[in-house]
């Protein structure tokens, strides 16, 4: 008995010590990353990390797959509170103010050069800045795009090569595309689906198209019940309640399968599902800009790379090397091809493999071309709560429970109470 326990103690010690780096020179980095599509992309990411480690014998990056965006943010937050932040991590871009409030990240000014930054698409950089410093580097980035079913267009007598370009056209097309059961009048096929779950993000795009925005982070203003926003929500209610050509609610994960199954003819969703739709749709489909109102408009999305607060200088430098490695034009182009995200840098689209790839699949260029009309994503401290408040207002209005004006007024009251401190400063 005694001998056994001594043996197991010894074993335990061996295991414990082998967990520490044997080579004192080796810089070990913890790297938290989320990916939307679990299996395949996690494998791709591990491949990148292995390549980096092979190129840098004195640095070892330890990748930690941390689930979706929310669980990743939670892991970062708990690690920061525990005094042991990850060295490098990717979280959703709108988390920047929360990360700053928690004192969780290092500014990256000492590492970036104007030349480095000038190659990134400006809309992608916007969410990286706060208080005159840069904190996050664009990595997996997306924007919403517009998908349409060409077969349905033909059926309804519409030109399958011409998607709607304005809200009015969208409404008109949606009415033509909606199919109802002749006896019960029940909708069999929706004209258009504005996906739920991240409908707050899509709503921001509509407000942009109408020439306004909900939150100006740099100016510290938040206006949710502006006439432009109310008009945008009225348009949604028109589609879902008055005309009944769009489903009032849905979830983010369920609408791409709905589109592929032909249950809806037009779809608002992230460019991130393009690969899924391409692989599964049994019909011709198109990818286009989101229809505009005053102008085209979209807000970017996705995740940025951050460096954890207070790590030793040598680890910080190693972390930056890793960030540089992940964001070279070649890697940006490769990640875009592997994942379907938009490549974050202009020169990534000049990489030969990427040129060849986009020639074969021009659909992948739509999101990039839409970037000229796109802006940074809405962000603020307590962003998750702001999101919930906005989503509730949108859901209540599209369900016909309250008017768009009343829903957004209510949201404004809640936002004022929540962000009062921040807005006044």
């Amino acid at each position: 008995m005694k001998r056994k326990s001594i043996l197991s103690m010894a074993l335990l010690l061996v295991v414990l010590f082998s967990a520490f780096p044997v080579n004192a020179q080796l810089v070990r980095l913890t790297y938290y990353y989320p990916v939307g599509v679990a299996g395949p992309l996690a494998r791709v990411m591990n491949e990148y990390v292995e390549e980096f480690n092979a190129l840098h014998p004195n640095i070892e990056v330890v990748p930690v797959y941390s689930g979706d965006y929310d669980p990743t943010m939670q892991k970062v937050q708990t690690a920061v509170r525990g005094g042991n932040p990850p060295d490098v991590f990717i979280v959703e871009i709108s988390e920047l103010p929360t990360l700053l409030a928690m004192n969780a990240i290092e500014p990256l000014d000492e590492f970036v050069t104007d030349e480095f930054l000038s190659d990134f698409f400006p809309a992608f950089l916007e969410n990286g800045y706060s208080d005159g410093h840069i904190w996050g580097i664009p990595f997996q980035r997306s924007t919403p795009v517009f998908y349409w079913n060409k077969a349905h267009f033909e059926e309804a007598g519409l030109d399958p090569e011409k998607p709607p370009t304005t809200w009015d056209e969208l409404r008109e097309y949606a009415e033509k595309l909606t199919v109802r059961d002749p006896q019960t009048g029940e909708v069999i096929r929706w004209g258009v689906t504005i996906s739920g779950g991240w409908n707050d993000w899509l709503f921001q795009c509509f407000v942009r198209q109408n020439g306004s925005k909900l939150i100006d982070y740099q100016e510290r203003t938040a206006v949710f019940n502006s006439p432009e926003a109310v008009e945008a929500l009225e348009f949604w209610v028109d589609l879902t309640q008055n005309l009944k050509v769009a489903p009032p609610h849905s979830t983010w994960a369920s609408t791409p399968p709905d589109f592929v199954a032909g249950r809806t003819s037009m779809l608002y969703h992230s460019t991130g599902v393009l690969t899924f739709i391409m692989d599964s749709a049994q019909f011709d489909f198109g990818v286009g800009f989101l229809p505009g109102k005053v102008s085209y408009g979209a807000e970017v999305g996705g995740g940025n790379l951050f460096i954890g607060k207070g790590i030793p200088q040598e680890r910080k430098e190693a972390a930056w090397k890793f960030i540089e490695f992940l964001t070279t034009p070649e890697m940006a182009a490769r990640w875009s091809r592997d994942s379907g995200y938009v490549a974050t840098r202009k020169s990534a689209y000049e990489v030969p493999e990427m040129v060849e790839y986009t020639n074969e699949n021009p659909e992948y260029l739509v999101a990039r071309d839409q970037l000229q009309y796109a802006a940074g994503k809405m962000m603020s401290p307590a962003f998750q709560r702001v999101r919930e408040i906005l989503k509730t207002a949108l859901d209540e209005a599209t369900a016909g429970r309250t008017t768009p004006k009343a829903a957004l007024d209510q949201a404004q009251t809640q936002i004022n109470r929540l962000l009062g401190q921040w807005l006044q400063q």
Partner: protein
Amino acid sequence: MSSSRLNLTKTRPYLYLVPSLALLSVFTYFPILYSTYLSFFRQNVFTLEPVFDWFANYAAVFEEPVFKIVVRNTVVYALGTIPITMFLALLMAILLNEQLGWIRDIYRVACFYPTMIPMAAAGMLAVWLFNPGIGLINHYLKMFGVPTIEWLYDMKWALPAIMLTAIWKNFGYFMLIYLAGLQNIPGELYESASIEGCGFWSRLRYITLPLLGPTTVFVVIQGIITSFQVFDLVYVMTQGGPADRTNVFVYYIYQNAFRFWDFGQASALTVMFVIVLLILVFILTRFMERRVHYEV
């Protein structure tokens, strides 16, 4: 010698309790006390260092319009799932306690298997079953001429869909407990009852149900605790939406703590939750103990 022996017999029971007491202290009692302590501090993304603020967090809870919806959802969920789950569990237990040969074993397995599926997997499965366009449930309903129900996308139907999933998932477990209870009832009672000429129904009414009393107390309390604690299904199936119509108490606590990063308010909610549960269980045990036959 004899006195130390006596001491040992007195202290021994407490010694046996030490391991579980230690675990409970570390993982249950200490967190409860610490949450209570935290609930008096304002601590969120604007005030990272906790600031003592009396009952401000408790007051803030009632200011949130969502809180009312959350309480209503939780109560509806509990009142909707517990009686149906219990009834189904009891019914199946009684039926499957009869002599039906090998068919009985197959049915027992069939009723119990949802319990063995991990909750998250069951939730994912349900998401597909309830899909309005391609889900099996609407497919079958359509055969009976029921118009399309949007289930998880619909403010009215999302919570019932989660409740149905929970009933399907949980009744097997309670059935098993009822089966155990049924097998504790001595066979002589039924024998003498049939000699006296009692039919199935009077045996059920005067022997089975009364003697299942202690089991029922356990099932009710267990049912209340599990239904108040529902989280996984909501997290997987709806994330509380649409418009918070499936947001329940524990999910709301999670949102406040880990999504909104408002630890003060989350702690206040937790304390309220513990108090409500304690009161409920206390009343129930008091009320039901009086009506239960523990001895034959």
